[in-house]
């Protein structure tokens, strides 16, 4: 979170994290009063991270944008439930990850067809296709934990908070996910 916030601070020309936080609190409070300009500012600030995370979890651009939009709308609609304006970023991120997990649970764990996979940015196409196939075979909880830790590089505490589970559960899930992913990867490489 801090790295992401730091990048955003630089990108938006703010002098310090305090300014960044103060500006966000101001926008959230304006948003509670129905200010659409504040809402647009919040969307502009958080959209990149939301889409990136949703993209890594769902491995599909359109679905990622769809979930990110749904998360924003849900977040703004349920804004009165948010007690502390400072916690807005985490609150929004949690909604996004949970919506992704809901989608992953609904999806059938089908192995993606090589031809059906669309080329994405980052990594070689073959590598990404293999990774997508392997991730698709993991249960939603293990997959999300692995992606949040390895790709999004969240800490144990952050993963635990986002997934609403104890840190011990994150640790054991991560161990299981890595082991299962390794086995699948070895099988895929051998085949």
């Amino acid at each position: 979170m801090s790295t992401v916030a730091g990048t955003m601070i630089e990108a938006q020309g703010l002098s310090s994290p305090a300014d960044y936080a103060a500006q966000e609190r101001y926008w959230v409070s304006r948003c509670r009063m129905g200010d659409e300009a504040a809402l647009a500012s919040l969307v502009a600030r958080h959209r990149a991270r939301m889409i990136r995370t949703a993209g890594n979890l769902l491995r599909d651009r359109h679905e990622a944008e769809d979930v990110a939009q749904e998360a924003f709308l849900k977040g703004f609609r349920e804004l009165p439930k948010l007690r502390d304006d400072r916690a807005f970023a985490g609150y929004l991120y949690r909604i996004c990850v949970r919506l992704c997990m809901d989608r992953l649970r609904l999806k059938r764990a089908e192995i993606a067809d090589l031809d059906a996979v669309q080329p994405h940015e980052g990594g070689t196409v073959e590598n990404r296709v293999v990774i997508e196939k392997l991730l698709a075979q993991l249960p939603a909880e293990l997959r999300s934990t692995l992606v949040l830790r390895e790709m999004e590089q969240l800490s144990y505490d952050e993963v635990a908070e986002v997934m609403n589970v104890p840190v011990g559960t994150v640790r054991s899930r991560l161990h299981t996910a890595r082991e299962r992913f390794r086995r699948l990867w070895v099988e895929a490489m051998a085949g």
Partner: protein
Amino acid sequence: MFKFSCQRFSRLLSESRDRELTHGEEGFLSSHALRCTPCAKLESQTFDCLAELRGATLDLQPSEGFGDGVVAAFREGRKSLGFGYWSPAVMGAAIAGIAVLCALTIVTKTVESPVRRSNIGAATRFGHVANPFPALNLDSAPRQLR
């Protein structure tokens, strides 16, 4: 004993990616990998596959007009929150109000009904109306009834 060591190796290998291992733990990992070929293989496989996983990270950028789309969808959603949003609450309140009125009417009628049907009690108490159930005087009754 060896199996236990392999399990510990696997667990520590996973944890080495998330935290700084102690000198003892690091020593155990390196010495065990030297003695156990399957665990050494597991170590290299784990690092390779997780490196590939990280290499497959997508850095998607929002498409043009994503922000406008969210704002428009929010605006649309707020419009539809008019009567459509409150109508169930309004209907519920109306039904509850009618039910309370009905209940009050029934209760009031039930309480008032004995007094309205007859004023025997009150009349008798104040002595305005003759007692409809006079005491039976057996001495004055005809002989056949005794």
